[in-house]
C-alpha cells in the first residue's frame, strides 16, 4: 500500500528517499539516505538478551548482568557499524556498451569506499531485474560491479533504481540505500537474420559487378583509414612492417547496397522492420559491402566501418522514440 502511494506521488517518494532521480555523476550515500532496521536474527538476539536478563535477575548474577549488558552494548555498536558500512559510499556509474534487445546490458558501477576501513559484504541489487552481486571494498580502495540487466526493448535503457544493502558485522541489522544514477545503455533492435536484399536501381549497376557480394575473398592490402574496423586490420602485416594496413576483400570493391525502409513488405510492423534492417546492417557490415540506410526522415549514404555501423544502429534503436 505504501509502495503504491509512493508510486503515485513521486515527490513524496523523493522527499522520503532523500534524492531526486536520476542523479548526475557520483552519488554519495549520506546518512540521510541510509536506512537501518533489525533483521529477524536481530530480533532473535534481542529475545536471547531478554532471557539472559531474566536469568540474571532471578539468580542475582552480577556477571550475568555484565554479560547481558555487554552483549546489548555490542548490539548497539554493531548497529552503528552496519550503518557505517554503507555511509558515505560513493557510487559512480560507468559506461555501458550498447547491446541488442534480448541481450543483457552490462551496467558498471564503481563503489569508492572513501574510508580508512574496509566495507565487506555489500550487496548491490538492481531492483528492476533482480540482478545482484556481493562485493567487498578494501580499506581506502574501491570496488566495481557489473549488473547484468536484461535489455528487452530498443531505445535507451536507464539503469533505474539500485539497492545497496549490508548486514555486516553481526547480521543483526540490515542497512540499505537506494541509488538511481544517471546511467543508460543504448539498446539496438533485436537483429533478424534474413538474406540481404538484392542491390537494386542505380546502385545495382555498380554493385552487381561483383558476382557474390557476401564473398570475402582476400583482395589485397591498403593504407589504414580511421573509419576501418579493427577486425579488418592486417595485424600480422602491421607487426612485420610497423605500418597500419587494412585488408581489402573482393566483395568490398564497389558493391553498393541500400537498406531501405520503404522496400520492406507493408505487412511488417515497425518493430519487425527495424529488426530486419538491423540484421541487414550487421550482415552488410560483415560482408564488407558499402551500404546505406534509408529511414523515414533519415538517410545514411553508403559507407562502411564501425562508425557508420554504429550510426545506423543508433538511428534504428531510437527510431520514432521520444
Amino acid at each position: 500500500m505504501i509502495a503504491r502511494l509512493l508510486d503515485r506521488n513521486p515527490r513524496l517518494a523523493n522527499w522520503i528517499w532523500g534524492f531526486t532521480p536520476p542523479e548526475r555523476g557520483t552519488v554519495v550515500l549520506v546518512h540521510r539516505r541510509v536506512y537501518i532496521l533489525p533483521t529477524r536474527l536481530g530480533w532473535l538476539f534481542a529475545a536471547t538478551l531478554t532471557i539472559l536478563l531474566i536469568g540474571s535477575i532471578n539468580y542475582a548474577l552480577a556477571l550475568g548482568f555484565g554479560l547481558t549488558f555487554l552483549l546489548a552494548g555490542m548490539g548497539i555498536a554493531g548497529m552503528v557499524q552496519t550503518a557505517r558500512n554503507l555511509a558515505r559510499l560513493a557510487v559512480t556509474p560507468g559506461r555501458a556498451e550498447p547491446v541488442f534487445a534480448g541481450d543483457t546490458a552490462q551496467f558498471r558501477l564503481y563503489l569508492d569506499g572513501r574510508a580508512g576501513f574496509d566495507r565487506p559484504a555489500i550487496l548491490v541489487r538492481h531492483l528492476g531485474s533482480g540482478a545482484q552481486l556481493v562485493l567487498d571494498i578494501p580499506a581506502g580502495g574501491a570496488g566495481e560491479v557489473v549488473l547484468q540487466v536484461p535489455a528487452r526493448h530498443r531505445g535507451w535503457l536507464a539503469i533505474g533504481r539500485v539497492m545497496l544493502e549490508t548486514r555486516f558485522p553481526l547480521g543483526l541489522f540490515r542497512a540499505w540505500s537506494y541509488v538511481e544514477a544517471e546511467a543508460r545503455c543504448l539498446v539496438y533492435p533485436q537483429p533478424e537474420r534474413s538474406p540481404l536484399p538484392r542491390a537494386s536501381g542505380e546502385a545495382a549497376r555498380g554493385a552487381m559487378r561483383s558476382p557474390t557480394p557476401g564473398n570475402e575473398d582476400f583482395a589485397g592490402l591498403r593504407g589504414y583509414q580511421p573509419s576501418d574496423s579493427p577486425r579488418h586490420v592486417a595485424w600480422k602485416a602491421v607487426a612485420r612492417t610497423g605500418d597500419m594496413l587494412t585488408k581489402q576483400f573482393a566483395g568490398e570493391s564497389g558493391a553498393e547496397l541500400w537498406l531501405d525502409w520503404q522496400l520492406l513488405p507493408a505487412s511488417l510492423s515497425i518493430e519487425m522492420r527495424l529488426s530486419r534492417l538491423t540484421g541487414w546492417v550487421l550482415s552488410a557490415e560483415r560482408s564488407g559491402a558499402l551500404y546505406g540506410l534509408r529511414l523515414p526522415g533519415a538517410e545514411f549514404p553508403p559507407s562502411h566501418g564501425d562508425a557508420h555501423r554504429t550510426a545506423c544502429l543508433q538511428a534504428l534503436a531510437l527510431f520514432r522514440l521520444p
Partner: protein
Amino acid sequence: MSALPHPLAPELRSVSARDLVWLIGSLALVIVPHALRAPWWVTLLTLCLYGWRVYFTLQRAPLPSRWMVLAVAAAALLALWIEYRTLFGRQPGILLLVIFSGLKLLETRTHRDAAVAAFLAYFLVITNFLYTQSIPTALLMSVALLATTATLVGFAAPQRESSANLRTAGVLLAQGVPAALILFLLFPRVQGPLWGLPQDAYAGMTGLSETMSPGTITSLAQHDAIAFRAEFEGEPPLNALRYWRGPVLWDFDGRTWSMGPEMRGKPSLPEGPASYRYAVVLEAHNRNWLFALETAASVPERARMTFDGQLVSAAPVRNRIRYELVSVVAPAPQRTEAYGALTRAMRVPKGFNPRATALAEQWRAGAANDADIVMRALEFLRAGRYTYTLEPPPLGVHSVDEFLFDTHAGFCEHFASAFTFLMRSAGVPSRVVTGYQGGDLNPYDRIVTVRQWDAHAWSEVFLSGRGWVRVDPTAAAFPRRVESGVTLAVPQSAAMPLMMQPNMEWLRSMRNRWEAVAHKWNVWVLGYSPERQRDLMEWVGIRDADWRQLTAALFSILGVMTFGLLVWSLRRFARPDPVQRAWRAFCGKLARRGVERAPHEGPRDYTARAARAVPDARRTILRVGELYIGLRYGAHASAPRVARLQRLVRALRVT
C-alpha cells in the same frame, strides 16, 4: 521484499568449514568449565557430536536425518535421567543444554542455524556464572565471548580473513563496554528471584550447620573456602579477640548439639566501650544466620537479633551479601535471664556419660560458687594433656566420657561439647556457641579473611551478676589456637589443606595479594546490589531514585553515547587530500561560471575547454590543470607546489 534469493539472508547461506571450526571452538571454550563438573560421559558425548559434525563437513556427506538426531537426544535424556533421577534440576538442565549444543550442530546447515548455535553459546556463558563468578571464570568467558562474536562476524563476511573478523569482534566488544558499564550501573535492579528455583540451585555450599556433633567442625576445618571477609574502619582487633558469633546451640541429646526451638525474648543491644565499626562481605551459605564480631551492637537491614544474641537474616543467604555492623568488645553485663532459658541451659540427657557426670557432681559438692566450678573445669582440661588434632579418633555412645578419659584427642567441638556437658551436670547454665575464630589479616588491604578452617566452637556460661560469659575451653587447653590461629595450633599432618600448613608462607603471601584483588572484585563488581545502586544515585545527587528516574537517565545517556559512537566512527572517513580539495573548489568555481565538468571529462580536456570558454582566466586555468595533473598523476608532489595550486585556485574569480 521479493521472492528472489537474497545473498545476505542467513537462511540461504550454507555453513563453510571455517564457520564450523569457529563455532565449535567457541562452544568448546564455553563448555570447558562445565566439563570439569559434568559426568565424564556428557563431555565425551558432546565432543563426539562436535566431531561428528566436522566429519560430515570434511566428507561433504549429507547431515544425519532428523530421526537420527532425535534418537541421540532421547538417549541423552534417558542417560541424564538415570544419572540424576530428574531433568529439572540446575545441573541436569545445564548439561542438557551442553548436549543440545552438539545436537544443534548436527542440524546446522545454514548461517541461521549457526547463528542460533552462537546465541546458545552466549547463553551457555551465563550458565557458568551459576557456579562461580570468580575472576578466572570471567576471563575465560571473555575469551569465549570474543570467539563467539568473531564467529558471528565470520557469518556476515565469509570472504574476509579470520584475523580481520576477530579484530572487528574485539572492536565491537570494546565499543560495547561503555554502554555495558552504564547499563550495569543504572539498570533498575530488582531483588530476585522472580520465581522458585530448582531444588539443587544452592547445592554444594559449605558452612556451619544447625547442629554440632563430634567431627562436624573437624571436617569443616579441612575446607579452605572463604566464609566471609571483614573490612574494619581503623585497626582490626587482635586475633585472640576475633570471635565471630554464629549459631547458638542449646539442646544436647548425648551426641549432637542442636539449636532447638527459638524462645521468646527481646534482646537488648549491648553497650560498652571499645567498639569496632566494620563491614562484612558474607559468602552465600544457604542459611539464615549472619556472623558478627562478639558482641554485635547493631542490627543490619533485613535482619534481626534473636534472644540469644544471634543475627538472623530474613531470607537465607543465597548470594554474597555485604552488611555493616558495630560491635563492642567489653559489653556491660546483662544480669538477668528468663527462668525458662536457664532451666533449658542446664538440661542433660539421662543415661549418657556417667563418668563425666560423676566428676561434675564431685566439683559441685566442693565448690563455693559457679565461677569456681568453671575454674576447676578449665584447670582439669589444661592439666589433662589433651591433643588438639584434625584427625580425632572416632567416639562411641558416651562421647564426652570417651573424649575426656580415654582418647584425650579432639578438635574444638570436642572441647566445647565436653565442657558444656560438665557445666550442665554441675548445675551451671551453659550453652554451646559455634562460629569462627581468628581469620587472616591480609597485609595488603587490611581485610580480615575468615575461611571455613577457622570454624570454631566455644561455650557460654551464665554467672549470676555477670550474665552470660564466654569461656573457650579449647583456648584454655591450647592458648596458641586463639593467639595465632588454627594453623599453628594443630600438629601438621596430611589432613591439613596445603595452604594451611605454616611452612607455605610464600604461597600464602601470593595468595594474600590475589585475595585482595578478589575482594575488590567481589565488593565492586559482584556485590553491586539495589542498595549500592541507591547509594551511587545518592552520591550523584539523585535521592530515592526509583526505576523511572533510573530508566530515564539510562536511556538519555545511552542515546548520547550511541550518537557519540556514530560521530566517532564516521570520523574515520578519509577526508580528501589538499590537492583533491583544491581541485574540487576549482571545478566548483568554474561551474558557477557556466563550465561544469562532465563526469567522464579528464582534467586536461576540462581545463582546455574551460580556458576556451573563460578567456580572461585562461592562463590561471591552464596552470591549475598542469599543477593538478602533475601532483595527482606525476611524481612531483611537493609542499610548495600544493601551496601554489591552492593559491591559484583561491585567486580565480567567480564572476
